């Protein structure tokens, strides 16, 4: 292993081969979990190990843009997985700015997600007719892109509004206040169906317009791909999410490496010292808060368009906590960590644990007998209460505990990048 590390050529070769094998395996078995995981593993290894940059780009691009879409046509669940991972990754990146960089514990982050989602949901559906004079709603799907920007702005403003009182508090007090404000947003969404019907309350809003993709289908046709709308949408959203993740990551990196990023970390490390070095506390914190919020807002709008339906149930405290878990599991303050954390949690939650329980269920249905010599067990006798699907949460909790015990700094710990001094020529 160590030898492998020291030999970049060998390492590159190994990773490339693994990636290739995994890809083929996945393409032939798009529905099984193992090849999928192996492919992701190869992707991860390619991005994290010290191999040449062009190879990283090549492997990463091939897997993300060719292999997964190709497999996705056979198993559109992969797209769903990719989209959800992407949405959460973007949010984790946003929360990473708030919690990871600036050290502000925010337990109400889903509130901004809700704000973004409702921004598009209300105007991209007939809902707005309920309280607007002109009966022109739903707005056509083209407006989606505009509304994504609006969602960013609205979420950022919400961030400022929520942050203004909350950020004057410290530590755990901040946590509880953000938790409360997050709940406030959800309760409002749940109750603003009267006296004026803004959100349609617990009934939720549906149907929501999706951005039109005729041009996309036409484009694909040029490449010789004939897709129906139903098939094209997942692909479209998948690619859209990839683009957004790209943008969001770039924004994250750029902020991290600017004076703002340094100021955030300084505040996280020592507020008093940071102030004594000329960093105004409140505006800087607010900036972090609003930045994080805007990421979440954008993803909210996307979520609404993808889901075609929003209701307050999607924006609970558990949601906020799960995003926090992603950030910390991945490694606080670390950008690849946030993405990986989001991927881990999402894949665990909607794929791995489900596959495992499906598998156990199959064993049971087939009456499989485990025979260890001294221990015989027929799965058909598995009591009903031991339904595997019921204990996914428990397993998830256990994984969280074990992760924290054995790798508390996260999967990819934050590592401060080295500032390179550009040589004067």
């Amino acid at each position, binding site marked *: 292993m160590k030898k492998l590390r020291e030999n970049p050529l060998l390492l590159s070769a190994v990773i490339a081969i693994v990636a290739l094998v995994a890809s083929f395996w996945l393409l032939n078995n798009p529905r099984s979990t193992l090849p999928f995981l192996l492919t992701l593993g190869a992707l991860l290894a390619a991005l994290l190990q010290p191999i040449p940059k062009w190879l990283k780009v090549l492997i990463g691009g091939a897997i993300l843009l060719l292999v997964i879409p190709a497999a996705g046509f056979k198993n559109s669940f992969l797209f*769903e997985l990719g989209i959800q991972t992407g949405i959460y990754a973007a949010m984790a990146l946003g929360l990473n700015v708030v919690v990871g960089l600036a050290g502000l514990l925010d337990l109400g982050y889903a509130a901004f997600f809700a704000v973004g989602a409702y921004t598009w949901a209300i105007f991209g559906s007939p809902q707005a007719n309920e309280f607007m004079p002109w009966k022109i709603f739903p707005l056509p799907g083209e407006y989606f892109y505009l509304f994504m920007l609006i969602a960013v702005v609205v979420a950022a403003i919400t961030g400022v509004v929520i942050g203004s009182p909350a950020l004057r508090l410290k530590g755990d007090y901040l946590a509880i206040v953000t938790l409360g404000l997050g709940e406030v947003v959800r309760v409002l969404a749940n*109750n603003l169906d009267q006296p004026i019907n803004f959100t349609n309350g617990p009934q939720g809003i549906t149907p929501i317009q999706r951005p039109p993709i005729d041009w996309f289908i036409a484009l694909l046709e040029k490449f010789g791909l004939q897709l129906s709308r139903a098939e094209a949408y997942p692909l479209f959203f998948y690619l859209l999410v990839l683009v957004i993740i790209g943008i969001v990551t770039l924004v994250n990196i750029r902020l991290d490496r600017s004076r703002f990023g340094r100021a955030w970390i300084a505040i996280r490390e020592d507020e008093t010292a940071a102030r004594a070095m000329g960093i105004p506390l409140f505006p800087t914190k607010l900036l972090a808060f609003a930045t994080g919020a805007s990421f979440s807002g954008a993803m909210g709008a996307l979520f609404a368009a993808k889901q075609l339906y929003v*209701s307050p149930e999607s924006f609970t405290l558990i949601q906020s906590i799960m995003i926090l878990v992603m950030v910390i599991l991945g490694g606080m303050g670390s950008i690849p960590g946030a993405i990986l954390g989001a991927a881990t949690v999402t894949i665990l939650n909607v794929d791995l644990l489900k596959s495992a329980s499906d598998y156990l269920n199959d064993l049971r249905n087939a009456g499989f007998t485990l025979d260890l010599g001294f221990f015989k067990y027929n799965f058909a006798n598995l009591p*009903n209460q031991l339904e595997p699907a019921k204990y996914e949460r428990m397993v998830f909790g256990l994984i969280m505990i074990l992760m924290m015990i054995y790798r508390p700094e996260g999967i990819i710990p934050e590592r401060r990048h080295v500032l390179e001094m550009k040589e004067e020529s």
Partner: protein
Amino acid sequence: KIATVSPLSGEQAALGEMIKLGAQLAVEEAQPEFEKLGFKLELAPQDDQANPDVGVAVARRLVTDPEIVAIVGHLNTGVAIPSSEVYKDYQLAMVSPANTGPAVTDRCYLNVNRLVGRDDVQGPAGAEFAVKELGAKRIFIVHDKTTYGQGVAEQFKKKAEELGAQVVGFVGTEEKANFQALILQMKAKKPDFVYFGGIYHQAGVLLKQMRERGIKATFMGPDGLDSSKFVEIAGEAAKGAYYTTVAGPIEKYPKAKAMAEKFEKKFGKKPESFAIYAYDSANVVIKALKDFVAYAKRAPTRAELSMLIRQTTLEGVTGYVAFDYKGDRKKADYFVVHLKEAKYPGEVVKVISFPAPATKCEAIK
């Protein structure tokens, strides 16, 4: 394979589990028959955690599994709607044993059907009985802020007001333990009738606390109260309460009785709430499947099965099942049940037959 999708973990697991068990019973009963036909019928229970994200993800998993032919689920309308958007794209049939929100079928998808009544029917049915038969004048309405509870409560309110009763309070609450704030409001408003739109575990506690604090108003709720748990939780307080339900007390149907006995033998508990709907839902699917297989000697495509399910009729444990053009049950009987003693089930005091309201379907996309 038939899949059930319902929350199996988290707070709503008790309800979700009933869906699973009901369907499981139906599937296991039908297995031998299918084996004879040379096919294998299996159940794939899935957990949607009552969360729309997870629901959609599960839906995606299911549609891409070629073995899955139909869905029995979900529990929550909020999960069902986005998930059924996915099923629709793959023409995968969904038969809902629990979603009462009008929007589920008002979208007129060909593949989406439901067995339960709609909120906009059950609520008015209850209101009619409350006002006309029980003479309710000052009505206090409470709901649980879910799609289901609030939906029913709103429809109840509309009808009750139409019929000339006064609605003195209309309050939503997510509270599960301490209802004193509501009870104090009732004390001030002095209602003679209280309607609760929601499910038994809240209703039972609310009713118990109401009686403890001396509120004597008549209590009524929708089929969310149709459970022995309701009586168990409320205890003596349950005496005199009413609820409306689509499923008459099991004893009334010989078939249902047999089913209940089998269920209890198999799972060690009584079928409750959505179990019988799930049982019937699964049976609708099974019947359609069987018909097709027997005729065509091959497994149907999803589209074929969807079409067929819409046409299928069944003499189920919940009564006669047939779907209208939107996927709603053509005609559902609504029973008003009175708990004369604090014992479940109560006595049916009235049967109201109500067709599903017609909605204009726009050109189906």
